[in-house]
């Protein structure tokens, strides 16, 4: 008879394995990076072989893919989508813009660092990152998941106040429902 801890370990392993191999992507095509997604998904690069497939609604999605620069106007929607996703959930920042604003670093209406507003698991560098790097980013995420290090939702919950404060700096007319899921 295996003890609880061991069985928990096995369960965790199975769960993580299946999570890793079944990534439903909510591709939030905010910027120009969205153009790379079809290429990634279709015949040539075929992300589905890793279990990556698109999800139509945040309810079903595991991964939020922010493809490129994020306008301040869009941030509200992204936050909303992110909050509606169900844990465990992961965020991939796609392209330089999500890291430091990229070529929009001094734009008045573009946020620079995505991480200030929602926790990010994996960044994919490049402007644009090619499908290969996108897939390598996903594989990195899979590794994190397998190791149990991808705790995006937990981080957000625990540091909610900080994130909220940052978000509210950008979003002036805050009329969002409270984070309760």
């Amino acid at each position: 008879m295996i003890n609880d801890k061991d069985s928990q370990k096995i369960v965790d392993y199975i769960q993580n394995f299946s999570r890793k191999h079944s990534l439903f992507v909510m591709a939030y095509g905010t910027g120009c990076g969205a153009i790379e997604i079809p290429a990634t998904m279709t015949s040539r690069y075929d992300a589905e072989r890793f279990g990556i497939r698109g999800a139509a609604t945040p309810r079903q999605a595991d991964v939020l893919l922010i493809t490129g620069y994020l306008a301040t106007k869009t941030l509200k929607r992204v936050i909303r989508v992110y909050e509606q996703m169900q844990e465990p959930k992961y965020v991939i920042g796609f392209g330089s813009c999500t890291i430091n604003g990229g070529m929009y670093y001094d734009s008045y209406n573009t946020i620079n660092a995505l991480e200030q507003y929602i926790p990010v698991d994996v960044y994919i560098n490049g402007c644009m990152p090619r499908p290969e790097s996108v897939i390598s980013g996903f594989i990195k995420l899979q590794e994190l998941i397998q190791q149990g290090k991808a705790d995006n939702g937990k981080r957000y919950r625990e540091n909610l106040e900080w994130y909220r404060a940052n978000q509210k700096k950008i979003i002036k007319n805050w009329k969002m429902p409270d984070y309760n899921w």
Partner: protein
Amino acid sequence: MEDLGLKIFGAILTTIMAFAVGMTYGGIVRKLTARVQNRFGPPFYQNFLDLVKLQSKKTNVAHGFMGHTAPVWIMVASITVLMFIPILNGNLWFPNLSFHGDLIFILYMMVFGSLGMALGAGQTGNPNSAIGVTRGLSMMVGFEIPFVLALVALMVQYHTTSIQDLMQIQHESGTWLIFSNPFAFLAALFASLGMFRYSPFDIVGAPAELASGPMSEFGGKYLGTMMSGGSIFAFIKLTLYVDLFLGGAGNPDHTGIWATLAGIGVLLIKTFTLYMVPVFYGWVSPRYRTEQAIRYFWGWPTALGIIGLIWAVY
């Protein structure tokens, strides 16, 4: 009471088998689709992985009682129908309750799940869900017509409304009903296109347009349970078609363990072959709008069904 225990065991076994086969078929279809699209595709067990992942979601969102029970209705419908469909002809292991319900009952029970899910989807309050539901229900009115025509043709031709009897007749006569009434089969086959909701009849959940339609508010365990129910349901539909038209599987004269396994093998082959029809059709078809889909079903399939019925009567 030993008998009862055996029956319960058989029932659970049937369910598990239906689930497994349904899920695997789904995976295989995904794989095949990928191959057809010149992709590598996910592994055939991908659906299981998805399911485990969905069930292992830590948080879930429920929209009230009907939303909460929506997957339950699907499971109820699937398992109930499954129990009333003879898996193997005359086999001791899988008789389930097939003597206690007939085709009419199954016809009605098959919509039970859809309605339940529609109610659940309705309660979520997502307009996409409602739109998807109306499309789905409207389309159901479309494909039920040729389907029922085909079934009535069978019932009339063989003077029975029991699936078991139909299988027995095919077994005894040695001819499959597909040959004795090809029109009815064709009508039913066309109807099956709509039932499986592959392209071109996938407007119900059109992902890009409706955000997966009725399911758009369901995630996690709800979606997972729905998926399992749906998989069982796919198996049910296939088995029903095989039982009705393709002679069924299994041999009532040999019910040993090997014969049973052989029967299951035959069943798998037949169902898989049948399954490929809507899948193939889907690969080469774009999407119909709802009214086009309905008109499609009310066109040739219905005509074929009527011919089949006339064929059966005279």
